[in-house]
């Protein structure tokens, strides 16, 4: 993988929102005093009348978004993933998802790569929280190019969507021409020995790992699971049938996220040897994103290692 360009997915989010604002006149944006971090400030500067800073009041923001949706607008509410899905969980559950309102929740600073702010700011449960609420769609873009497609698709569909956006600069490796369909996994690489399902920033790590594995004679398929819900059952089952081994990788707790979603599909349809790489039921801590990803096993090196362990077992 020779990637020269890096770009923060949240920067791409801000740009995409600004662009959509021009065509989607119904779009309104809300933030909770983090517009300069989530990058909704760009939309706010261009369309001040359609931008509402709600102050540091995430619960209030989500229910205000619900009210705007009932009024016929398409609200996009942003804050950090921890405060959006954590502080405002029950507002999302009861006032947005229960009545299936057309609210898009785009939360940045997700996962460990928040870095130095520490464990209090690293959301490692948000996929789990959002995935378990009926009517919610959950999308985790893997890079800056996909971010724009994901936001567009989320705005085009009717109903609540959670978009999980990451903070640091990250490799841009998907192409404008690549397809993006909510609920349809993107198979980035074929392989017969194992299928690696990854989401968010871990997709790139999985691709790097697959190249290294290829050098060692192991053929790994890599799947970009940009949509965690609805999960692409067909892709999971057909790859499990083909490779007999499944590995999942996510910048999230191993409880309730991508790994759990894939396991739910496989256990009922096609029980398959499986390993979930994620945060092992503990909190994060301060450190650089690189240090933290390494410490918690979210690296291409660990993907290679875990793959080899699985292959040895069988």
């Amino acid at each position, binding site marked *: 993988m020779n990637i020269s360009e890096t770009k923060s997915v949240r920067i791409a989010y801000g740009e995409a929102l600004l662009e959509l604002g021009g065509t989607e006149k119904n779009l309104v944006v809300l933030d909770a*005093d*983090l517009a300069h971090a989530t990058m909704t400030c760009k939309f706010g500067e261009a369309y001040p009348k359609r931008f509402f800073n709600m102050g*540091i*009041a995430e619960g209030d923001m989500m229910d205000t978004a619900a009210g705007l949706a009932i009024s016929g607008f398409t609200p996009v509410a942003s804050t950090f993933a*921890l405060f959006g899905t954590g502080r405002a969980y029950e507002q999302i559950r009861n006032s947005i998802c229960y009545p299936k309102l057309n609210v898009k929740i785009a939360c940045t600073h997700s996962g460990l790569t928040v870095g130095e702010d520490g464990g209090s*700011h690293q959301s490692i449960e948000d996929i789990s929280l959002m995935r378990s609420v009926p009517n919610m769609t959950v999308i985790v873009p893997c890079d800056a190019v996909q971010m724009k497609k994901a936001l567009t698709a989320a705005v085009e569909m009717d109903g609540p969507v959670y978009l999980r956006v990451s903070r640091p600069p990250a490799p841009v490796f998907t192409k404008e021409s690549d397809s993006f369909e909510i609920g349809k996994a993107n198979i980035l690489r074929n392989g017969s020995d194992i299928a690696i399902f990854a989401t968010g920033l871990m997709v790139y790590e999985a691709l790097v790992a697959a190249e290294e594995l290829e050098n060692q004679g192991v053929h790994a398929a890599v799947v970009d699971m940009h949509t965690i819900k609805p999960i692409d059952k067909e892709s999971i089952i057909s790859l499990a049938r083909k490779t007999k081994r499944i590995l999942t990788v996510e910048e999230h707790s191993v409880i309730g996220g991508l790994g759990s979603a894939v396991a739910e599909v496989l256990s009922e349809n096609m029980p398959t040897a499986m390993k979930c790489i994620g945060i092992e039921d503990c909190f994060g801590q*301060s*450190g650089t994103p690189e*240090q933290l990803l390494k410490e918690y096993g979210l690296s291409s090196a660990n993907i290679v290692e875990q793959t080899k362990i699985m292959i040895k077992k069988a």
Partner: protein
Amino acid sequence: MDINGLQEISRIVRGDVIRMLGEAQSGHPGGSLSCVDILTTLYFAEMDNQPGQNPTERDRCILSKGHAAPALYSVLARKGYFPVEELLTLRKFGSRLQGHPDMKKTPGVDASTGSLGQGSSIAVGLALGEKLKKGTHKIYAIVGDGEIQEGQFWEAMMSANHYKLDNLTIILDHNGLQIDGTNDAVMTLGNIRKKLEAFGAMVIEVDGHDHQALIEAYRTPVKEQFKFILAQTVKGKGVSFMENQVGWHGKAPNGAEVRQALIELGCSK
């Protein structure tokens, strides 16, 4: 400690904050510098709080605006809770000094904070616990002015009034700024004094950089009522180019800025 001593320790703490953020290359200078005098007067002139005491048998202070952790860590180190040299490990991998206060990791930290709006409720719990145990220790919480936009803050004020928590003092670091701009540009706060009075507080307004005024406010007697100190402060206080600048909320100073700030504080040597 007398007023001269408090001025001196406040200057030293501000120097620590700048060095720590310069070394960490991330963090929050503005809101750390604005609450330095509030913290130093509490820890060096008012609270019954020393390393070695059982934490449940002394006065306690919750830094509800947890992003000002560097100021708290410096004060705790200067009180002897841990070595001053450790301050430069702030925000680094493996450090006891996390980006936001972690009561399990850092000696002297009385509650884990960082998610805004929660500290006042924790303080209400501590104050209720103290009353239940028939203790006489005091509980303090420091909140930000952007932070009080959280509804939960007002829920805590309602409880503090309902349970007549005269062992509880909430201190507002009123620097007028948050992340996206001034308080009023983001979400108008209105008349804070009147709002708090309506919630049942004894409100005392002070210059939050005047040590004498702060001490008098802490010592003003109160009965069957909680106390709310409305401290008027300057975000970035003590470093000319940071003062009242919203851009210095969450940005670390570079090498040249650290040097300049330390010269201004009289901390370069």
